[in-house]
């Protein structure tokens, strides 16, 4: 593509948008995510049936025109249930990521900016927290607090906070060396102002990538916990709990299990691919953590 003067003069933000739009995989994934969000918002208008209405005559029916994805063990329409469950699944993931950011962002900024023994202490705690398998720690935290969706998402947020912290600390450390930080300090800026005005904007790129990937991870973790019965409690349902309740009847009616599993997998895949796309478009930064 020839470089026109206009393209060169574009501010960096639109350069990012242009690079991202050129990434076909990421764009398709983003469209699917937008579509899923719209489905969640307009669930009452889109669901063909009342997700809570059960019918004794429609127990575990195979897919038909009336029940596009079949019906479950209580005679409820699986498609309508999946459509309504997208709300809880998405909100729950956002909740977990917000908690992870709320803990990880300030700690990462402090750890990276202040350095010294503060950094050493925070990092050792971080290492220790990251020695626990995420799902097991989440199960244990839920066990301590009692099974419920809020507790499950709090647990997942706590478990993922160290990952956010690591990413933020890493970027803060590299920004701290820059000349403009030294000159900001020389002009008499306070630490709080430097962190908010100069460090934070530079941390945003990696943070957005990490948050996107964490959305997928949180969705997966929520599905796992709800599958185990430790997350959302009936009569409410998320994709994971629909999968969990369809699983015992899988031999008789496999469609609900497969449908719920596919919805979860596709959504997580899209979050991962959008995260990869953002990372590639921002340029020199890399996705840290695992």
């Amino acid at each position, binding site marked *: 593509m020839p470089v026109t003067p206009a393209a060169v003069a574009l501010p960096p933000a639109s350069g990012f948008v242009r690079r991202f739009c050129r990434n076909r995989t990421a764009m398709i994934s983003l469209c699917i995510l937008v579509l899923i969000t719209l489905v969640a918002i307009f669930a009452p208008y889109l669901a063909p049936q009342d997700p809570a209405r059960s019918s004794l005559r429609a127990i575990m029916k195979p897919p038909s025109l009336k029940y596009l994805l079949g019906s479950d063990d209580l005679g409820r329409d699986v498609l309508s249930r999946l459509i309504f469950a997208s709300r809880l699944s998405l909100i729950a993931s956002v909740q977990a990521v917000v908690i992870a950011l709320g803990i990880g962002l300030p700690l990462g900024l402090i750890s990276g900016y202040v350095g010294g023994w503060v950094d050493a202490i925070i990092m050792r705690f971080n290492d220790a927290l990251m020695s626990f398998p995420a799902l097991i720690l989440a199960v244990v935290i839920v066990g301590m607090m009692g099974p419920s969706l809020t507790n499950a998402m709090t647990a997942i947020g706590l478990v993922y906070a160290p990952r956010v912290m690591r990413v933020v600390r890493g970027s803060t450390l590299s920004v701290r060396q820059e000349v403009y930080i030294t000159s900001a300090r020389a002009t008499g800026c306070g630490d709080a102002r430097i962190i908010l005005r100069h460090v934070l904007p530079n941390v945003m790129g990696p943070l957005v990538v990490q948050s996107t990937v964490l959305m997928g991870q949180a969705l997966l973790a929520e599905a796992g916990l709800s599958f185990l019965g430790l997350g959302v409690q009936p009569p409410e349902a998320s994709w994971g709990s629909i999968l969990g309740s369809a*699983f015992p009847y899988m031999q008789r009616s496999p469609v609900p299990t497969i449908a719920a599993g596919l919805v979860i*997998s596709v959504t997580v895949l899209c979050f991962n691919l959008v995260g990869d796309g953002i990372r590639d478009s921002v340029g020199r930064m890399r996705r840290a953590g695992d």
Partner: protein
Amino acid sequence: MNTLLYLARRLLSAVPILMLVGLITFLLIHLTPGDPAAVVAGDNATAEAIEAARHRLGLDKPFLMQFWDWLSGVMVGDLGTSFTSGRPVVSLIFDRLPITLSLTAGSTLIGLGIAVPLGVLAAIWRGSWSDRLIIITTSMGIAAPEFFIGLLLVLVVALNMGLLPATGYVPFAEDPVEWARRLILPCFTLGIGLAAELARQVRGAMIDVLSRDYIQTARAKGLSTLSIIVKHGLKNAAIPIVTVLGLQIRRLLGGAVIVEQIFAMNGVGSLAVRAVFLRDLPVLLGVALITAVVVLFVNLLVDMSYGYFDPKVRQS
């Protein structure tokens, strides 16, 4: 001598982390809403029973004293007693650990068995359509939850084709053949995600190694592609691969919780899930602590393997 020093240094560096892991586990009990002693004493407990529980847990002592008491118990292998079964937590967990470890070890083998050939082929065919296919497949493998893969395997292989049993676990000592047969599906369930993650690492590491000068030299000497890959490529690509394997152990242990549930295996994960419903706090804390120790131990092994794969590490 160098190796021994290296080992000792590694072991020593694990001690502070181990202490912190203990502290975090201990702090978890304070997440219990309300009074942990009341939860411990059970429903309809009298005020005396709650006081007795508080005393037994040491919750009436200063915080540091509590931690020290708990830690000195842990040091001698005392993780408390299960509220529901009355058995020592340590023996409950160690009874089930072989199941979970068989599962994670088997999945690691399957993960490596799939990932190494796939990653090497993708690296050799870099940029071709087969490389792209492998990348797309591994992306899907990373995103697919364990429970979905497991359920599909149960549905197709066990229920429809009837090739393998769908659930249950048989101890190795009882019947080694049945032990292996019952582990195949769970290990594949857990191993596929690992394979997807590892295959990408193998590909990346191999691409890096294959571009090095010594590979050119080996080629110029007339060595076959196979022996170049096995003798020079894989050994040099091993460090990033082993590193990722070490990171993935946490995911395997976490995934085991779900896989054990699907395949009705009575492992550590099932123990934890049941403990949540029974509010059996000592068992939960024990599971957290022991799995973290397993993770630290595996990472220690990974660190030590660097010395094997790369002699420079030993000398530094």
